[in-house]
């Protein structure tokens, strides 16, 4: 049993022990983790203690909550008090946060069992999990290929049966793209839907936490638990979110599904074919297909790769060898900053810090960062117009299926192009999710992306559930 809804129902009913669920997942980890490397840390003892406590609650007649006994894998950029949190970076190796992220508290309150911290591209910068300081994660469907990234560890953990649910963060596609490549569901909610308190910041105006799961219903379940306003995150939206679990039963009769006629080219034929079949599936389920235009979509990549590094260069200034993490000694503090950061950051992080610092520096701000913010507005407004004609939009989630290690070489732009279809939703703040929809080249999973308007998660989940039914 691996679906969270089933596990939680059985544990709450007393017909399944949380301890047995944990042992089943630990056994799966024992079997394949050496070749997959999904985790930076497997929390064996903590998970066992937690499961025992949940079973004791059930035995005493108490309800542990909607995620009772569900094993959850956390991306290792989410703070867990007293448990190492590394961002897969040497600069945070060994750091134990003095507090829990809000989502960690919410998981505990809902009865979940955190089973480990998963690998990622260093500071979530990458699309293949090859940029981890602790070695790459391998795709469970084909271990010669990447799992996508940056939440590649969480995606692989769910696909390999190491955890029932993974949590990831998505700044430019870091949940949706690895979900597509690993054949699982991955959701980036509306910006502000989930509290970012305790999520180590990459680009604060783009980052959002979301689930990676085997089923659309499990993603709905998880978002129903972790969504909502948090006084500790002033960008979390102060409204009550309707239950997504309730929404997915409703079907897509009469729903307007938009096709973006000027979508950037570059997707492989197998991915485009599956996306076409997804349109057909929703039409067969009663939806109406409409054409929409988003001419600025194609400029998303440029806007993103100026804005995200700019914010990152500012956020990552805190890693200076003073308050936490690595310090390389030097005669004075200023020199210590420079050698510590040079030793602690990997190549991709350095590259983005450099790009961002340049885009923000005097004389170049208007030409790069300032202009990118205007393009961002353009993209946002064009999507808003599109959502007047369509309830959801369908696109590929990734231009290709999982690619072999090293396939993008040392050309950063080739890797950045992996995010071409996912980036616009981060810039605009709208929600998006990837749903597995059959297989493409070499029998590898293809994900179709469903996009929707601000806080229109219910419609997005209805469309995703219809695609899931059609794919089965």
């Amino acid at each position, binding site marked *: 049993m691996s679906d969270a809804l089933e596990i939680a129902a059985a544990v709450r009913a007393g017909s399944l022990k949380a301890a047995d669920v944990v042992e089943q997942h630990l056994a799966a980890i024992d079997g394949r983790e050496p070749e997959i490397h999904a985790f930076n840390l497997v929390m064996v003892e903590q998970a066992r203690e937690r499961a025992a406590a949940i079973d004791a609650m059930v035995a005493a007649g108490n309800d542990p909550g909607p995620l009772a006994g569900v094993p959850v894998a956390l991306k290792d950029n989410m703070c867990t008090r007293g448990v190492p949190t590394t961002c897969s970076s040497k600069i945070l190796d060994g750091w134990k946060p003095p507090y829990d992220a809000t989502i960690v508290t919410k998981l505990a309150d809902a009865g979940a069992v955190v089973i480990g911290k998963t690998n990622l591209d260093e500071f979530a910068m990458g699309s293949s999990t090859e940029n981890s300081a602790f070695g790459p994660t391998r795709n469970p469907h084909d271990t010669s290929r990447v799992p996508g990234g940056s939440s590649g560890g969480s995606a692989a953990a769910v696909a390999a049966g190491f955890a029932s649910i993974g949590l990831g963060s998505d700044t430019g596609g870091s949940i949706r793209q690895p979900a597509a490549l690993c054949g699982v569901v991955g959701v980036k909610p509306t910006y*502000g839907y989930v509290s970012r308190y305790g999520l180590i910041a990459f680009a604060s105006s783009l980052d959002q936490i979301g689930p990676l799961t085997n089923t659309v219903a499990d993603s709905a379940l998880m978002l129903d638990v972790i969504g909502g306003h948090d006084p500790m995150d002033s960008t979390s939206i102060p409204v009550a979110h309707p239950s997504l679990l309730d929404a997915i039963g409703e079907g897509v009769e009469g729903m307007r599904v938009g096709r973006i006629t000027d979508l950037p080219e570059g997707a492989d034929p197998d991915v485009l074919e599956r996306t076409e079949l997804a349109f057909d599936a929703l039409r067969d389920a009663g939806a109406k297909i409409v054409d929409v235009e988003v001419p600025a979509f194609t400029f998303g990549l440029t806007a993103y790769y100026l804005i995200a590094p700019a914010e990152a260069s500012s956020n990552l200034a805190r890693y200076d060898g003073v308050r936490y993490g690595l310090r390389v000694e030097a005669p004075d503090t200023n020199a210590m900053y420079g050698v510590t950061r040079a030793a602690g950051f990997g190549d991709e992080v350095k590259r983005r810090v450099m790009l961002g610092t340049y885009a923000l520096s005097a004389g170049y701000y208007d030409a790069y960062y300032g202009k990118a913010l205007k393009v961002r507005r353009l993209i946002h407004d064009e999507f808003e117009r599109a959502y007047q004609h369509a309830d959801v939009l369908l696109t590929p989630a990734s231009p290709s299926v999982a690619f072999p290690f090293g396939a993008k070489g040392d050309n950063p732009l080739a890797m950045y192009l992996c995010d071409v279809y996912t980036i616009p939703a981060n810039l605009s703040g709208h929600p998006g999710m990837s749903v597995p929809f059959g297989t493409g080249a070499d029998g590898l999973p293809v994900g179709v992306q469903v996009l929707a308007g601000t806080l229109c998660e219910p419609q997005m989940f209805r469309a995703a559930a219809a695609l899931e039914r059609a794919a089965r």
Partner: protein
Amino acid sequence: MSERISVEIVTKVARLARLDLTPEEIDRTTAQLSGMLEHFADIDALQLDDVEPMAQPYPLDNVFRDDVIVDGLDRDEVLAAAPAAEDGRFRVPPIIGLDV
């Protein structure tokens, strides 16, 4: 490809970013940033004069909350994670008094 950024500028940016890059890293970064900026020129043709910059997606501003006193982080726990601490404070190498 015409260079869109020079070694001198990259060296200055590395200093601003507090990154001690090696000469090889400076050269490689210069080439890679040049390639990226070449690609990023695609937005130069856009007419953006009347477009309002957008810094964040959701139109929240002046977020207030009640001034409720809660416990802060535990000082010893925070300092335990620091590379060096002394007398309840973070300890750093000399800041002044050296010719830097």
